[in-house]
Structures are given as structure tokens and as C-alpha cells.
């Protein structure tokens, strides 16, 4: 029968997390707890050079003196950092040449995710570096990339094989002591991706990485470093889903982007970590620090589709250091049930004629809370800086919340700052209109939400956009109302 808010709500509650399964791959796991010894052991396990071990220890020292941030508009039970195991690696560590050599169980997992690592995708030109529980287990298309001088590999490998690059840039954008979670990540990050595009090279394919949390009680700390040398271009995709779990899992990633003069980085994320069940139990805590630095005429675009996690705390930011540099942030954040999201961006205008665009679409359902928090800062020497921000919220039901916190700090009079915000509700009239055309309520909601999100979906690379749309639809099939 037709939509009423009551019915819709009930329907939502019965929809369990679609991707709630978990792969049984043997792993080698550290006992729980965090100390200097654990940091050293971790570094040793990863056969890291001494400078890396020292860097981690320095970060750990900093972290011990820091306290968790309180200012975000989110409420949760603080994780017990001594109750987490800081290392877990799949036991089998083979090198694959082709897909049929890959653990079938793993392939099956990806199939269930609907983001399968099948030949089609590879033929479509996507090199995939999968981070399965902290250690990369497959890398494809490395050869094609190598011919162009592009380095795309697990960061653990880069530390050993390209120490000069890693040493120069790691922590240069997000210093180890930047914030509580960045410090923790710097001390204990296990793996992640490294990418370097040489001068003037246009990366011929979308680079993509799929992250998953897999081991019970294993915090996951990824570290990503993308360096686009002068005049180069790269589009980087990061997508993730996690298995259904009863206890809270901590995810504290750090992503650093460096766009040197005239370079461009497009960084797209589809995030679907386990959001917890309908009572608000379980689910991933996602505390991420993502930041990019633009040199002269450089451009960084962050595009994100956030549907998962119990708690999301994430502000992909751009430091527009070089003159004429451009920063963009396009975001869709969906929250349902008891999910809490506090996400947004920071655009720091330092250079002259710098430009930034922020488009944020928040969709809240159930008892969830969805906050946009954005900072636009124009420094005194940033002549002619321009910013356009648009924050739209879509509410479903009466128990959820949408909040917008735009902070604007302008120290140069020539700046032009525009901010627009709207809040709307999916109306029964819209649903009935769709119903009358033969479209059932679930599909109608998907349609309306897709329409609402279109400006951002359009920013994603084609293939990813289809996946993202599917993901929105899945989250909405009962998970939004």
C-alpha cells in the first residue's frame, strides 16, 4: 500500500545490512594493546627502515599527550585503545598474475559486494590494489603504469622501494601531531596505497583501491599518499564496505594529496562501512583525516559518497597554497537509524586568485544525525579568492536531524564568498505522484534521492557513479525513510 511515514519506518527497520558477511581468511594477529613496544614490533614486522620506526615512535609520543576531540556534533562511547589489536595480516601472501590465482573466497566476497574484481573491470582499464585487512594482496596493471613511470603500490612497499619520495612527503600535509587520530594513525598505520605520477604524465586509467575491515576487533589504520608531480593528472578511486560486526571497529585513516604546479588530482570515495544495526549497536567508527595541498595552478577535487559507518568524522580539505589553485569538495552523506555523521571540508585560501567550490548533500533518515561542518578561510595575502558553497539537506521522517555549520574566516577584503543552504523533506505528495505512475515507494525514494544527489553523482567517474547510485539505492531500499 501507499507510503505513510510509519510504514516506511517499519520497512526500514527490517532491512539488515546488505553486506553483512565476513570472509574467513586465516590471519596473523597481534595481541591487543598499544605501547612503544607494539609500535616497534609492528615496524619490524613490516621490515621497515629505521627512519620509519623513529617517525612512528615520535608520532606515538605525541599521541600519548593528546586527548580525543570533543567538538564534533557526535556522541559515542570512546574506543578503548588498549582493547584493539594493531596488526593483522592474511597468512597467505601470494603474488597474483591473473584472477584465477586469487583466493576464490576473496573473489566471492567481492562478488557479494557487487563491486567485483572481474575481468570486465580490468578490461575497462581499472587497476585495482586491494587492501584486505591492512596488507595488499593483489595488484594489477602495474606494468602499464610502470611504463609511464607511475608508481602505484602498497605504501609498505613504497617505504622500502621509494624511501626518498615517502620520506619527503609523508606527514608533510598531515603532520603526525595534527590531531589525535592522525597521530594514532602515524604511529600504527599498517598499510594503504602510495601513488606517484611523474611530471607531465596523465595517468591513463582510474586508480582504485578497495578497503575492507575484516578481522574481529582489528582497528584499521590506512595511510594513503598521492603525489602528482608538475603538470600531471590522476583520478584516484577509493571504495570500501565492511562485514557486519557486533563490536565497534575503529577506522582512522590518513590521506595526503600533493598536487605540485599545474597538476590535478581527482580523489573519489564511496564509503560503506558497517553502520551498526537498527538499535545502533556495532558499526564502524570512521575518523579520517584527508588533506591535499595545491601548488601553483594545481587543482584537487574531493568527491565522496558516504553511506556507512556508525560514526563518521571526516573533513577532506584543500590547502590552496599556490596562486590560481583550485579546490573542490562534492559530498553525499546518507545517515539512517542511529548513524551520526559530522563531515564537511576546509578550504584554506593562501595563494592569489584561488578558487574553491563546496557542494554538500546530506540525507538523513531514522534517528540519525547528519552535520555539515565547513570552514572557508581566506588569508590576508590571498587576493581575489573566491568560494561558492552549497549545502542541501534532505530529511526523511521526523526523528532525524540535519545541521549545517559553515565557518567563514576572511582576512582579505577582495574575497568573494557565497553560501547557500536548503533543507527539504521527501513529501507524501512526491511519493504519491510516483506511486500513481506505477513506481512503488521504495523505488520512488531511490529516484528522489538520486535526483537530490545528482550534482555530486555526476562528479564521479562514470563507472563509480553507477556503483554509487546502486549503493544509494541499497541504503535506501528500506534504509532511508
Amino acid at each position: 500500500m501507499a507510503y505513510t511515514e510509519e510504514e516506511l519506518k517499519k520497512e526500514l527497520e527490517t532491512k539488515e545490512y546488505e553486506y553483512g558477511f565476513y570472509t574467513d581468511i586465516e590471519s596473523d594477529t597481534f595481541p591487543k594493546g598499544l605501547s612503544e613496544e607494539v609500535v616497534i614490533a609492528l615496524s619490524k614486522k613490516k621490515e621497515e627502515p629505521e627512519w620509519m620506526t623513529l617517525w612512528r615512535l615520535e608520532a606515538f609520543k605525541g599521541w600519548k599527550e593528546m586527548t580525543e576531540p570533543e567538538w564534533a556534533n557526535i556522541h559515542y562511547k570512546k574506543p578503548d585503545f588498549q582493547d584493539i589489536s594493531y596488526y593483522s595480516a592474511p597468512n597467505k601472501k601470494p603474488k597474483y598474475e591473473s584472477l584465477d590465482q586469487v583466493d576464490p573466497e576473496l573473489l566471492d566476497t567481492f562478488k557479494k559486494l557487487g563491486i567485483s574484481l572481474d575481468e570486465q573491470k580490468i578490461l575497462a582499464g581499472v587497476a585495482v590494489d586491494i587492501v584486505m585487512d591492512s596488507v595488499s594482496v593483489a595488484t594489477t596493471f602495474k606494468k602499464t603504469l610502470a611504463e609511464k613511470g607511475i608508481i602505484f603500490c602498497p605504501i609498505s612497499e613504497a617505504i622500502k622501494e621509494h624511501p626518498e619520495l615517502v620520506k619527503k612527503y609523508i606527514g608533510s600535509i598531515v603532520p603526525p601531531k595534527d590531531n589525535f587520530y592522525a597521530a594514532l594513525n602515524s604511529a600504527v598505520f599498517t598499510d594503504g596505497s602510495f601513488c606517484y605520477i611523474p611530471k607531465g604524465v596523465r595517468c591513463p586509467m582510474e586508480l582504485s583501491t578497495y578497503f575492507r575491515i575484516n578481522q574481529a576487533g582489528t582497528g584499521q589504520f590506512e595511510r594513503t599518499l598521492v603525489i602528482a608531480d608538475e603538470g600531471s593528472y590522476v583520478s584516484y578511486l577509493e571504495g570500501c564496505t565492511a562485514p557486519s560486526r557486533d563490536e565497534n571497529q575503529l577506522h582512522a585513516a590518513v590521506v595526503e594529496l600533493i598536487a605540485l604546479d599545474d597538476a590535478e588530482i581527482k580523489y573519489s570515495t564511496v564509503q560503506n562501512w558497517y553502520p551498526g544495526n537498527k538499535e545502533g549497536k556495532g558499526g564502524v567508527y570512521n575518523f579520517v583525516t584527508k588533506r591535499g595541498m595545491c601548488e601553483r595552478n594545481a587543482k584537487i577535487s574531493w568527491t565522496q559518497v558516504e553511506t556507512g559507518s556508525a560514526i563518521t568524522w571526516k573533513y577532506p580539505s584543500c590547502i590552496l597554497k599556490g596562486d590560481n589553485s583550485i579546490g573542490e569538495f562534492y559530498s553525499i552523506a546518507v545517515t539512517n537509524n542511529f548513524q551520526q555523521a559530522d563531515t564537511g571540508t576546509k578550504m584554506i585560501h593562501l595563494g592569489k586568485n584561488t578558487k574553491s567550490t563546496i557542494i554538500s548533500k546530506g540525507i538523513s533518515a531514522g534517528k540519525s544525525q547528519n552535520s555539515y561542518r565547513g570552514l572557508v578561510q581566506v588569508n590576508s595575502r590571498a587576493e581575489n579568492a573566491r568560494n561558492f558553497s552549497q549545502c542541501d539537506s534532505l530529511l526523511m521522517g521526523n526523528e532525524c536531524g540535519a545541521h549545517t555549520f559553515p565557518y567563514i574566516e576572511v582576512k582579505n577584503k577582495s574575497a568573494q564568498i557565497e553560501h547557500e543552504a536548503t533543507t527539504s523533506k521527501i513529501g507524501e505528495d512526491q511519493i504519491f505522484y510516483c506511486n500513481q505512475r506505477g513506481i512503488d515507494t521504495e523505488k520512488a525514494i531511490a529516484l528522489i534521492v538520486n535526483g537530490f544527489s545528482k550534482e555530486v553523482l555526476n562528479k564521479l567517474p562514470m563507472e563509480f557513479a553507477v556503483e554509487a547510485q546502486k549503493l544509494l539505492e541499497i541504503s535506501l531500499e528500506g534504509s532511508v525513510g
Partner: protein
Amino acid sequence: MLKIKDLHARVDGKEILKGVNLEVKPGEVHAIMGPNGSGKSTLASVIAGKEEFEMTKGTILYEGEDLDEVSPEERAHKGIFLSFQYPVEIPGVSVTNFMKTAINESRKARGQEDMPANEMLKLIREKSELLDIDRKFLSRSLNEGFSGGEKKRNEIFQMAMLEPKLAILDETDSGLDIDALRIVANGVNKLKSKKNAVILITHYQRLLEYIIPDFVHVIHDGKIVKSGTKELALELEEKGYDWLKKEPVA
């Protein structure tokens, strides 16, 4: 095709339809006229299955089936179409995408595959030409920023695309200039056949010059107070509704 018996309906505890009787047979065109607030749109919504309106008494039979337990989307799948008096905006969803979804959802309900893209394109081309609709219009967000006339024409375009058995047009003529009215009427006439029926809700005799009704009903205070042929519409145009309000219930 449609048989409404002693229909009572209310919204927010207020009784709006107070015993409507109406029978529509295949091939017929019925016009429903009446003053503002008399319950015309309510009747249309109840036939389409809008849940806000609670049926307290009576029955609606459609092709012999009691619609009481049938959802609005199922009614649509069975061929009931409502051209809304106030079409709703859906930002970001193009007319084309909306129609594609609507057509494929109905096909799915009938156990058919999605309509192949080339067939869909052909259909869109054909129907947009019939209604003199600019193709650029079809990529715009549904009803967002449409003028009153564009909204109505878009409703009829959707009707033409969906080819319903029973089309209810709720004041589709209001807001249309004479050229648009002619185009819309032409579209409706093209759809008309021995198998289909049309219910026209209108204030004005004007539309009925282009789409000739077989029957005209006057609704007042939730009841049909007078029924007749197309001459009744002319009489109403001349005399207004007041004389009917005073007459005993027909």
C-alpha cells in the same frame, strides 16, 4: 470499466465525499464539473488510491475488481492514470528518466523485461511530437520551474507514454492558452478508443468543445447533484452553479 457506488470519503476527520455514484464504460468520456471545493480532486485522488483519504463507505470497482486493497502503484499498473491538478516537482530527476522508470516498473509488474532503449527512444520521439514538446524539455527536472502550461502538457505527455485504460484529467485545461489547449485536447483524442475511458474534471465548457463528453456530471458538496449530456455543460456556463445548489438532490 469503473463503477463507483455510494462512495464516502474523508480526510483529517472531515467528510468530503458524501455518496458518489458513477459508472464509466469503455469508450466513454465523462466530464465532471462543479464549484471549487466540491470534492472533484478528492474523487480523483480516491480513485487513484491516495491513502490520506479514508474511504468510510461504498465501493470502487475497476474492471470488476474491488480496489479497496489495491495500492496506488498497482492501480497504475492496471491502467489508471491521473493527470494531477497540481503536478509535483522532483528536482534532479529528468522527465525522460522519470518516464523510463515508470514504464519499466509497470512492465516489471506485468512480468515483462525492461523496454529496450531504442524502443523507448522511438516512443518518446513519437509522443513528444504528438504533443509538440521540445526534446530539450525532456531533459529538465520533472516539473521544476515549469510554467503552469508546461506542467499540464507534461502530464498529458506522460499519459500518452503510459497509454492508460482509464485517464482522469484533473483541471488539465486550466492554465493553458488556446493553442496549448488544442494540442492537449488533440493528444487526449488520439488516445481515445473503444477500450479506453476518460474522466475530465473541468471548470470550463471550453475544453469540452475539443473533447466531446458523452456525459456531464455536476458535483456539489461531495455528491453528484445532476447528470446529463454535453448540453448540461453549456447550461452551466450560462447559469453558473447556484441554481443547482438549490435543487433537490438528483
